[in-house]
C-alpha cells in the first residue's frame, strides 16, 4: 500500500479489521535498564494493580473523525476504532484467531458453515445488550448496494454474494455505456439486493437465536474467517438509517461500541478522549481515561521523556535518544508491511525477468537496512515479510548485493553495449527510466538516491522525481504511465494477498504483471483452511514471486514502540504489540 507514513498504518487498519488492536509479532522487550525488566515481563508482581488515572498515548497525524469500523479509511481513525469496538474474533499471542465476542465458534466439516455462539455478558457502551441482531446488521450493511465503504468484496465468498456482485458489475457497465439511466441502475441494484435478502441472504448470515449466528459460504474460502472478525456496529443505533448515508450518522463521529474504552470526544487536531467501559466483557479496565494526543513526531520524544506522553511510536533513527533511560521501555517487533519499487511491466525495458532480477541484485538493500533503518528491519524477498505467520525462511534465502551477477544477467538479456558515459544501450536506445517517489516517508525518500547510484554502477540510468502522494497515486493507479515508483504495502494476517496481484484490480493493474501460475496457486491457497496444507502452497508462491519479481522487493521496517515503564504497569508485550491488553494495564498511585 502505501506510501506516506500514514500508509504504514493502513497495515494496522487491515490488522484491525482482523480483530487486533495493533500490528503484531513477537515483541522483544528492551527496557532501558535491567532493574526495570521484571516490571515489564512479569507485569509487576510485587505491586498490586490499582484503579484510576489517565493514560496519554500519541499519534502523529489527526484522525479524520470517521470512527466507523466499516467506513474508516486511515490508520489514525483505526487506532481509535481499535479501542472502542470489538469483533467476533481476535488474535492470541500466536496470532491465531480466537473468540472475542463469541463463546465458541465451529467450522463445519465441509468448511462452508461457520457457527458462532455469542457471549451473553456483552453490552454496548450505551447499556444496550449485544445480540445476534448486531452481527447480522453489520454484515448486511457491508453488502448493501448503497454502502459507501470498501469492504464488500471481502465477503464475496458468502452464499450468493458473488452472484449479486456480478449482477451489480453488469448494471454498472450498462450504466457506464449509457444503456440505462442512473435511476434504473439503482433500481436494479436494489432488486438484486432484495432477491438476495429473500433468497441466499437468509442463509449467508443467519441469526438462529439471540446468541447464535451462522455464516454460510458458497465454497471453502480461507480468508473469510479473518474477515468475519471485523469490529461490529450496534444495530439499535443505526436501525432505519439509509445505508448510503452511514457517513452522516452522528454515531460515525461519536461511536458506540463494545470495546474496552468508550468514546467521549474528539477535539479536532488536538486529542481524542476515551473513558473506560465499566461493563467490558474481558474485565473492567483499570485505567480510567485515555487521552490519545496528536503529537509532532519531532517533539514527541521530548514529551515522552518529560512524562507528558506514555506511549510513542518510534522512528529507527530516534531509538538512540531514549536508549538507556530506565523509565522508558522499547518494544520492537517485525512489521507485516514492506517497501518495494513498483515497475510498469508494459514498459519493454522491464519485460524480461532477468532485467528485473538484475535490478534487485544491483541495489544494495542491506545498506538501506543497516544505515537508514539502523538495523531495525530486514530484507524482503517475496510478498510475505519475515514477521508474517506464513513467512517461510526456507522458501527464498536472502539475496545479497551482487553487481557482478546483475551485470551478467543484463548481458544475457541483451544489454551488452555501453555509451560514452558508461550507460547501457541496446539498438541505440539507452537503459533509462524515471523513478517516482512520494514525499512523506523520510526513510523511503532517502532510498531513492541510493537506488539511483546502485543502478548507475551497473549502467542503468535512473532519473528521480519526488512528488506528493496524491499526484503519484494518480499517475500510478489511474494514468498507469509511471515507469517505476517507490511505495509500501501492509499485508493482512491471512496469506492471501487479495486483489494486490490481480491484474484486473487497480493494484495489479498498476504494474500490469500477469501470471497464470500465481493466480492458480492463490486460488488453491484460498480454498484450503488447514495451515499445514496451505503452507506448501504459499511457499511455492513465494518462490514464484521472488523469481518473477512483479515488483522489486526492498525492505520491511520494524515497528518500534516506546512506553513509560514508571507509569504504565501490567505490560505483557507480544506479537500483538505493547498495549494489546490495555484493559489490564494500570498506573501506580504515586505516578498519577
Amino acid at each position, binding site marked *: 500500500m502505501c506510501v506516506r507514513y500514514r500508509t504504514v498504518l493502513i497495515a494496522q487498519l487491515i490488522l484491525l479489521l482482523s480483530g487486533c488492536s495493533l500490528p503484531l509479532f513477537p515483541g522483544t522487550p528492551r527496557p532501558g535498564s535491567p532493574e526495570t525488566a521484571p516490571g515489564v515481563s512479569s507485569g509487576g508482581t510485587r505491586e498490586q494493580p490499582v484503579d484510576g488515572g489517565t493514560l496519554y498515548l500519541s499519534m502523529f497525524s489527526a484522525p479524520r473523525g470517521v470512527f466507523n469500523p466499516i467506513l474508516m479509511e486511515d490508520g489514525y481513525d483505526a487506532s481509535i476504532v481499535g479501542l472502542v469496538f470489538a469483533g467476533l474474533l481476535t488474535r492470541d499471542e500466536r496470532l491465531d484467531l480466537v473468540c472475542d465476542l463469541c463463546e465458541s465458534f465451529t467450522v463445519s466439516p465441509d468448511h462452508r458453515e461457520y457457527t458462532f455462539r455469542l457471549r451473553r455478558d456483552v453490552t454496548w457502551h450505551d447499556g444496550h445488550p449485544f445480540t445476534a441482531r448486531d452481527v447480522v446488521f453489520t454484515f448486511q450493511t457491508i453488502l448493501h448496494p448503497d454502502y459507501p465503504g470498501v469492504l464488500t468484496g471481502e465477503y464475496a465468498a458468502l452464499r450468493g454474494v458473488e452472484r449479486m456482485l456480478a449482477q451489480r458489475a453488469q448494471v454498472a457497465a450498462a450504466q457506464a455505456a449509457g444503456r440505462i439511466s442512473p435511476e434504473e441502475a439503482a433500481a436494479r441494484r436494489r432488486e438484486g439486493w432484495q432477491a438476495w435478502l429473500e433468497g441466499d441472504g437468509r442463509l449467508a448470515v443467519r441469526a438462529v437465536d439471540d446468541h447464535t449466528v451462522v455464516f454460510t459460504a458458497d465454497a471453502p474460502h480461507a480468508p473469510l474467517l479473518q474477515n468475519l472478525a471485523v469490529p461490529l456496529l450496534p444495530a439499535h443505533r443505526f436501525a432505519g438509517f439509509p445505508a448510503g448515508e452511514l457517513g452522516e450518522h452522528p454515531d460515525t463521529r461519536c461511536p458506540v461500541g463494545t470495546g474496552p474504552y468508550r468514546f467521549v470526544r474528539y477535539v*479536532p487536531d488536538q486529542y481524542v478522549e476515551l473513558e473506560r467501559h465499566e461493563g467490558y466483557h474481558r474485565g473492567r479496565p483499570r485505567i480510567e481515561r485515555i487521552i490519545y494526543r496528536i503529537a509532532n513526531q519531532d517533539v514527541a520524544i521530548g514529551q515522552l521523556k518529560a512524562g507528558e506522553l506514555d506511549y510513542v511510536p518510534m522512528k529507527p533513527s530516534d531509538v538512540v535518544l531514549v536508549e538507556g533511560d530506565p523509565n522508558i521501555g522499547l518494544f520492537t517487533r517485525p512489521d507485516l508491511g514492506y517497501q518495494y519499487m513498483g515497475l510498469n511491466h508494459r514498459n519493454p525495458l522491464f519485460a524480461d525477468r532477468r532485467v528485473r532480477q538484475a535490478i534487485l541484485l544491483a541495489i544494495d538493500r542491506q545498506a538501506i537496512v543497516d544505515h537508514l533503518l539502523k538495523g531495525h528491519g530486514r530484507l524482503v524477498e517475496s510478498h510475505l515479510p519475515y514477521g508474517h505467520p506464513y513467512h517461510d525462511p526456507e522458501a527464498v534465502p536472502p539475496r545479497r548485493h551482487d553487481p557482478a551477477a546483475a551485470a551478467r544477467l543484463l548481458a544475457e538479456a541483451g544489454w551488452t553495449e555501453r555509451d560514452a558515459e558508461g550507460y547501457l544501450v541496446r539498438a541505440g536506445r539507452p537503459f533509462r527510466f524515471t523513478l517516482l517517489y512520494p514525499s512523506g516517508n523520510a526513510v523511503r525518500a532517502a532510498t531513492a538516491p541510493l537506488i539511483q547510484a546502485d543502478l548507475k554502477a551497473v549502467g542503468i540510468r535512473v532519473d528521480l522525481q519526488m512528488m506528493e502522494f496524491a499526484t503519484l497515486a494518480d*499517475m500510478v493507479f489511474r494514468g498507469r504511465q509511471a515507469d517505476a515508483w517507490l511505495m509500501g504495502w501492509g499485508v493482512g494476517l491471512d496469506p492471501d494477498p487479495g486483489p494486490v496481484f490481480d491484474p484486473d484490480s*487497480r493494484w495489479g493493474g498498476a504494474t500490469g504483471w500477469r501470471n497464470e501460475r500465481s493466480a492458480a496457486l492463490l486460488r488453491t491457497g484460498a480454498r484450503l483452511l488447514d495451515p499445514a496444507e496451505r503452507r506448501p502452497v504459499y511457499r511455492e508462491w513465494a518462490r514464484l514471486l521472488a523469481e518473477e519479481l512483479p515488483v522489486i522487493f526492498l525492505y520491511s521496517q520494524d515497528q518500534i514502540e516506546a512506553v513509560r515503564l514508571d507509569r504504565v504497569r501490567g505490560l505483557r508485550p507480544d506479537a500483538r504489540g505493547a498495549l494489546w491488553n490495555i484493559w489490564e494495564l494500570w498506573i501506580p498511585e504515586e505516578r498519577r
Partner: protein
Amino acid sequence: MAGFVVRRLAQLLPMLLGASLLIFAVIRLAPGDPYSGLIDPRMDPVKVAELRQRHCLDCPLPQQYWRWLSNALRGDLGTSIRFRVPVAELIGDRLGPSLALGVTAESIALLAGIPFGILAAVRRGTWVDTAVTAVALGGLAIPAFFFGLLLLRWLSLGGLQILPSAGFTTPGTQLTGLPLFLDAARHLILPATALGVTSIAGLMSHVRAALLEVLQQDYLRTARAKGLPERVVLYRHALRNALIPVVTLLGLNLPGILGGAIITESIFLWPGIGRLTYTALLERDYPVLMALNLMFAGLTLLGSLLADIGYAAVDPRVRFE
C-alpha cells in the same frame, strides 16, 4: 473618506469573483483529485466512479465552477471530502486559535520591532545600533521552527518545565470562561513567542531603514531649524512618514496572520488554519481549498484597503476624495 471605503468595497466583489475563478482553475490544474489517494486495493473502482460522480468531479469544469459558485453565493461552501463535515464549521473551528496566535505574534513583532527600529536609527553608527542590528540579523537567520524547538527545550520539556509543550488547551479538561482563557493563554505563550520573535527582525530593519531615509530629508532640517525639540521632530515629523512602508507591510501581512504559521502550528500542535490548509492541499480537498484560498484572497484585498486607510492616519499628504 466614507465614499472612498464604499467604492473600494464595491470593487472587492468583482475582484473576489475573479480570484475565485483563478483559484478554481489553479486547484484543478494540479494532478490528482480527492480520490486519487484512495488506493485501498479493496476499493471497488465502480464505487470510486460513483464518488467522483456524486461530487460532480467528472462534470465539465465550467459546470463544476458554476455549481460551486451558486452554492457559495447562497452561503453553502460545501462539505469537506476528507473530514465529512461542512467546510464553514471546519474553518470556523480553527479560526479562533489561528487569530489568537497570529494577532499575539504580530503584536510581539510590532511592540518590539518598531521601538528597536527607532532606537537603531536614532543611534545610528553607535554600539546600540550594532547590537540591535546583530540581534535582528540573528532573528532573521533563525527559522521559527528551530527557535520553537529551542523554546520547547528551555521552557517546556527540558530546563524550566513551566509551560505546556503542545496543544490549544490542556487535553481532557472541559473549561469555560476565564479558566479556559487562562489555560489557552498559557498554551499560546510558546508558539506566539516563536512566531513573533522571529518576525521582529524583518519589521525592525524596515523601520530603521525608512526612518534613516526620512531623517535626511530637508523638511526635518527645517523643523530642527525652527527650534522644535528633537522629540517632536522625531515622533511627530519623522516617524509618521517612516511608518508608511510599515503600514503597507502590515496590511499585506493580514492573510499571513491567519495562514502563515504552518510549521509553527505543527510543532506546537496548534489547531490553526495553516495546518488545515496543508492537509487540504495534500488530500485535494477541493471544497476546503476553495474556501480557504478565497478567504486568503479576501484578506489580501482587505489588507490593502486597510493599508490605504492607514496611510491617512500617518501621512498628512493623503486625503481621500
